């Protein structure tokens, strides 16, 4: 029996994104998608991705996701007043000042030597080279310019990669409308209980007013409370709190008149760190801190209306069991220092579409879904932890504790291999690019002691010319692009 009816539990972004994406991608098979609210949460306290945030940023992979399900990006940006993102600025984690961690390619190989090793050799010769100076995205961000990549393989402008910065509430409203247009039914009565067959599969859900909602597949998008999955899955939560020390976030929104930044800013502070996402006219700030270090960051930089939420980082190793799937924050809660919580959720939706079962048994699909999810989570986890572990803020108790904490073997291996050889370990489930690891290492002052042996045989002059030519090409290209506010304004006025 093919899967015809899907019931989703949740009220936030995750529920409506899942509903809309499935309704669009599987319209020939799935005949009914219902969304049952899980709680009475106000829409501005959306924890469906794991950590309660007011705004999020995506990786460039979101654009493929939008294409896959058929979203019109301009319409989305216009209607939700979204912005574009070119990467992450990492401020004061080890290095004084800002290191930019850009999206997209960085530099270009010189013959058989990849760009990183050209750079490592020149650094070994004493040059102070910044990776960002050879990234189109970083130079765009610096110049305050933006336009989408052109569709011409011969132009350097075709290599630009970008993500989106979004206000989650507005995005959710947009998705809700879209989902309803595509036949998704929004139920008003809240989910109360799941009814199970003796085999362990869910047969139907019962709502607070006693109605029954039967289905073939049930999806929990209710965030860390796991309203549905906790009734179905016996499995334990594996905490990451020993590696991701921040257990509180305080969010605020302030009006901003200045030109918005086309990147996310991660600023390390004495007792935690601050994440800033700029959208046109508004600045979203999320202040992360650790209750173990007793300092309440919400007193700093706070404006009226800031609210503090708890964070419980960790994951459930088997998000899909029988015919019940936990998605987003119901499956894992990752520290937003990684800027990956939105990405991991979207990757999950994409994976569900690619593995959408043709029959309700779906054992093979769930095994593969869980395998891929775990592989991805492990890589994302390492990336998040590396932000804390490698910090250089000696003398501050919070940061000293982070620097001396034991970390997973897989992360130790990545760090040691990079330090010893300049090679970036990449696993099957890797969610970010090689150069993102390098930028993070740069930001944390982690420098390899060796570089590609082949790079030694290339004359220095040739290398310098190569770097110069890349830089000139990029700068010339950036100069032809519109300013970011003008580009946004053009989309908004369409």
């Amino acid at each position, binding site marked *: 029996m093919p899967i015809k009816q899907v019931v989703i539990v949740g009220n936030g972004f995750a529920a409506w994104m899942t509903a809309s994406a499935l309704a669009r*991608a599987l319209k020939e*098979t799935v005949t009914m998608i219902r969304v049952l609210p899980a709680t009475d949460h106000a829409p501005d306290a959306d924890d469906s991705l794991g950590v309660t945030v007011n705004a999020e940023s995506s990786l460039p992979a979101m654009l493929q996701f939008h294409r896959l399900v058929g979203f019109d990006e301009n319409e989305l940006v216009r209607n939700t007043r979204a912005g574009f993102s070119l990467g992450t600025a990492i401020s004061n984690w080890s290095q004084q000042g800002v290191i930019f961690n850009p999206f997209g390619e960085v530099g270009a190989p010189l013959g058989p030597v990849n760009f990183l090793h050209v750079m490592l050799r020149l650094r070994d010769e004493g040059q102070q080279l910044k990776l960002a100076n050879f990234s189109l995205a970083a130079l765009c961000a610096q110049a305050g310019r933006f336009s989408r990549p052109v569709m011409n393989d011969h132009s350097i402008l075709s290599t630009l990669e970008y993500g989106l910065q979004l206000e989650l509430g507005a995005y959710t409203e947009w998705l809700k409308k879209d989902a309803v247009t595509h036949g998704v039914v929004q139920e008003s009565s809240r989910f109360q209980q799941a009814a199970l067959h003796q085999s362990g599969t869910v047969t139907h859900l019962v709502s607070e007013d006693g109605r029954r909602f039967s289905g073939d597949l049930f999806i929990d998008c209710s965030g860390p409370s796991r309203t549905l999955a906790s009734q179905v899955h016996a499995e334990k939560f594996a905490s990451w709190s020993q590696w991701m020390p921040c257990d509180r976030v305080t969010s605020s929104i302030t009006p901003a008149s200045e030109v918005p930044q086309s990147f996310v800013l991660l600023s390390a502070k004495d007792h935690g760190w601050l994440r800033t996402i700029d959208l046109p006219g508004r600045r979203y700030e999320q202040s992360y801190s650790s209750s173990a270090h007793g300092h309440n960051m919400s007193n700093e930089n706070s404006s009226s209306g800031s609210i503090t939420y708890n964070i419980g980082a960790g994951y459930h190793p088997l998000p899909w069991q029988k015919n019940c799937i936990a998605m987003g924050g119901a499956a894992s809660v990752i520290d937003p220092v990684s800027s990956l919580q939105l990405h991991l959720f979207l990757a999950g939706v994409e994976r569900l579409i690619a593995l959408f079962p043709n029959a309700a048994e779906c054992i093979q699909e769930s095994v593969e879904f869980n395998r891929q999810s775990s592989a991805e989570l492990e890589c994302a986890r390492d990336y998040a932890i590396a932000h804390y572990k490698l910090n250089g803020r000696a003398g501050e108790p919070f940061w000293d504790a982070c620097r001396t904490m034991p970390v997973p073997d897989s992360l130790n291996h990545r760090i040691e291999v990079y330090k010893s050889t300049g090679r970036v370990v990449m696993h099957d489930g890797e969610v970010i690019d090689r150069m993102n690891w390098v930028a993070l290492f740069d930001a944390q002052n982690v420098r390899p002691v060796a570089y590609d042996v082949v790079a030694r045989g290339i004359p220095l002059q040739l290398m310098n010319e190569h770097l110069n030519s890349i830089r000139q090409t990029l700068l010339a290209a950036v100069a032809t692009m519109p300013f970011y506010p003008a580009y946004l304004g053009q989309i908004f006025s369409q």
Partner: protein
Amino acid sequence: MIQVSKTTGPVQSVLIVGGGTAGWMTAAALSHMLQGQQISIQLVESEEIGTVGVGEATVPHIRFFNRTLGFDEADFMRRTKATFKLGIEFCNWGRLGDAYIHPFGAFGEDMEGVPFHQYWVRMLQAGVQYPIEDYSLPVTAARLGRFAYPDADPEQIKSTFSYAYQFDAGLYGGYLRAYAEHRGVKRIQGKIVGVDQHPESGFVTAVTLDSGMRVEAELFVDCSGFRGLLIEQALEAGYDTWTHWLPCDRAVAVQCQSIGPASPYTRATARESGWIWRIPLQHRVGNGHVYCSSYVSDDIATETLVKQLDSSPLTDPRVIRFTTGKRRKQWSKNVVAIGLSAGFLEPLESTSIHLIQLAVGRLLEFFPQRDWNPMNATEYNRLMDLEYERVRDFLVLHYHATERSDTEFWNYCRTMAVPDSLTQRMELFRERGNVVNYRDGMFLDASWIAVYLGQRVVPRHYDPRCDKFSENSLTYKLAALRNNCRNAAQSMPHHQDFITKIGAHAH
């Protein structure tokens, strides 16, 4: 700011032990990539010790190797008497009488983000019975004996394949040797009779030859073949045996004359207790029978091989013994094993030369510094282990995905326990046609699909997104694809003519 740390610099001397395909590929690549640096590269080989050289068929990655070294394709083909290769034909694997080609290229084209074979499954269930290979240009061309270079324009159907070569590995070794010696590699003739190791670290410091000559080096590359002169005999790196999954342990090889034009593909025919390869070169055909000695004697295996040759043998059949598996540490202390000393996987998918190429590339990537940081070896070994294990799983699939029950050997293979990773892969494909993919590992989705479908592992369900198209429109699309493949293949020149046309014909 921390101090800019000056590196200690790479090791300055390399000794390659053994001069077969592995030794000379290593020497050629190192001499090219390290040119202009003061790193001495020497190779010691003995004319007394023959090379195994069974790997005559390759995979497309070899073109990257040749291109990096700057080889002229026509010149290289003339000198190694090479032919082009579009894939491997597997006969009698799923069932007696079955035949499919595993091509260097994908089947059909993806539609709406859904892989083509999913649509193929849907239409199969609807009664459209054309084999998947009718949607592959390289298979269609191979069956017609045609060849041409792939088109660079991805819009063209003629861009949908890649190619490799079938060549005389002995001649390729000679070709590489001339190249390497020209670039300063010093060849030392002699047999190694002694290995000196540092009393504390156990690092190899020098080898002594039968002439009494002593050769020192900082890095040793062990290309000495099965016995692993340095990696095993001196360093005892250990060996993981995989014969419970890949039970064949011997091969008998023989060459015969070509009759008729050379086909642009290799053939692997399953037999009672193993399989027979057929590799057509310009001047001869290489043949061999890989078998399991627990089920068949050397004499019968040889007879089976000789009986089915195209023409009378040119050489005496030669039996080679091997143990399928992998060196536990391919890089141990200051010795890196490359080629048969690193592990052995039967040449069913022509992986031997590719694994050498990969090892050389990785050695350059993790080329040791003089301080011998252990992370170089650790990461090198992790990556190589992954490659070997993934090739192994792919080979095991060929034996395990069978309905044959005509001999004890096939009963064993059909019912043996296989690695868990492979069981999961096969079950997922059988259920719904999804291929588990990975980052490090040479065989991509298209290869797995070719072998699954070629050996009757057919998905029970297809991707529900296939229902976006009506049956009529899919019938039309699939027919158009088949026609395109056929027309494109027929417009390609005959393989032999193409070799002549590009000046690659050996006289």
